[in-house]
């Protein structure tokens, strides 16, 4: 793999994470428990989709085959998406959505912070913008984790279930395969394995305040980075891609 191919694939993985999670959160639009939270979740969704757009546009440039952000976002097959599996997990109840977002935000906050030091100027600039956005995502979801965990018996119970269902998807975030290692060597990537302690500290301290505990994960699910997905991604794509598939090349 050439350096250029490494950068392209690295960008796609990162962009797919944000797009798929953003699309998931967007499903709450009009359905959230309150108007305030409806806007909060879709604000986060739009932050993520904005990040995805910057990353796809840059990936298209790096690839140099004339594909733009729309083609990369909408006209690929399921196995071509390289997002981590946690991004595609269903919204479930509000507890599941909050735990999923909390897990990811606690990872992305230090991730973007480190990415600001990237040797790649475009990635560093995208990171500088995303850092501020994700700092808020982490704050917002942390506050909810505390209130739901230390809330009523039912909200506590639902949080326990959500943690148990989702913890198995957190390990993949810290995996470094050959591509990540090559990208780190090239100087533009974040050494995700080094973020694990900080992630654990953040998660543990918020969960402690919420009277919750991070369950033992046992086996960690993995495969998204290679295009092996849970059954959920295909359903997301059928909705996400509908317009570009039905009307190729359409724009707003």
């Amino acid at each position, binding site marked *: 793999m050439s350096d250029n191919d490494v950068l392209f694939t690295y960008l796609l993985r990162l962009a797919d994470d944000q797009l798929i999670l953003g699309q998931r959160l967007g499903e709450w639009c009009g359905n959230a428990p309150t108007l*305030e939270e409806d806007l909060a979740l879709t604000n986060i969704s739009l932050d993520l989709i904005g990040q995805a757009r910057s990353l796809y546009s840059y990936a298209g440039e790096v690839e140099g085959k004339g594909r733009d952000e729309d083609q990369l976002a909408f006209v690929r097959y399921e196995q071509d998406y390289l997002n981590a599996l946690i991004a595609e997990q269903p919204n479930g109840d509000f507890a599941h959505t909050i735990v999923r977002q909390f897990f990811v935000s606690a990872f992305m906050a230090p991730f973007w912070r480190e990415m600001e030091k990237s040797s790649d100027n475009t990635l560093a600039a995208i990171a500088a913008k995303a850092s501020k956005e994700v700092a808020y995502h982490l*704050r917002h979801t942390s506050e909810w984790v505390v209130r739901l965990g230390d809330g009523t018996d039912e909200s506590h119970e639902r949080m326990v279930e959500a943690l148990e269902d989702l913890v198995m998807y957190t390990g993949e975030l810290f995996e470094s395969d050959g591509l990540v290692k090559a990208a780190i060597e090239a100087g533009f990537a974040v050494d995700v394995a080094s973020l694990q302690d900080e992630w654990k500290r953040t998660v543990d301290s918020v969960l402690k305040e919420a009277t919750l505990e991070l369950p033992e994960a046992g086996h960690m699910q993995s495969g998204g980075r290679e295009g092996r997905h849970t059954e959920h991604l295909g359903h997301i794509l059928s909705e996400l891609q509908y317009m570009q598939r039905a009307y190729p090349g359409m724009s707003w």
Partner: protein
Amino acid sequence: MSEAATPLWEVFIRARNGLSHKHAGSIHAADAEMALQAARDVYTRRGEGQSIWVVRSSDIVASDPVDKDMMFEPTSSKIYRHPTFYEIPEDVGNM
């Protein structure tokens, strides 16, 4: 969520340095921190603000509409209170 669990808060936004906070609307939230976040999410999506205040609606003391005549009518005849009787030199420009 019930009104008791998520009471009403009034939201005040300051658009820029040097301006005062202006009432923007209201939101429901369980406590002060969540109220601040809800205010941010609902009322500053288009760059409206640099600073937010939230106040429990129940903490606001309001005048009674019934007292409207007593409270505000007497000022309507005192037009000399408006600063419209001064000649403003042209050099001053807009006041």
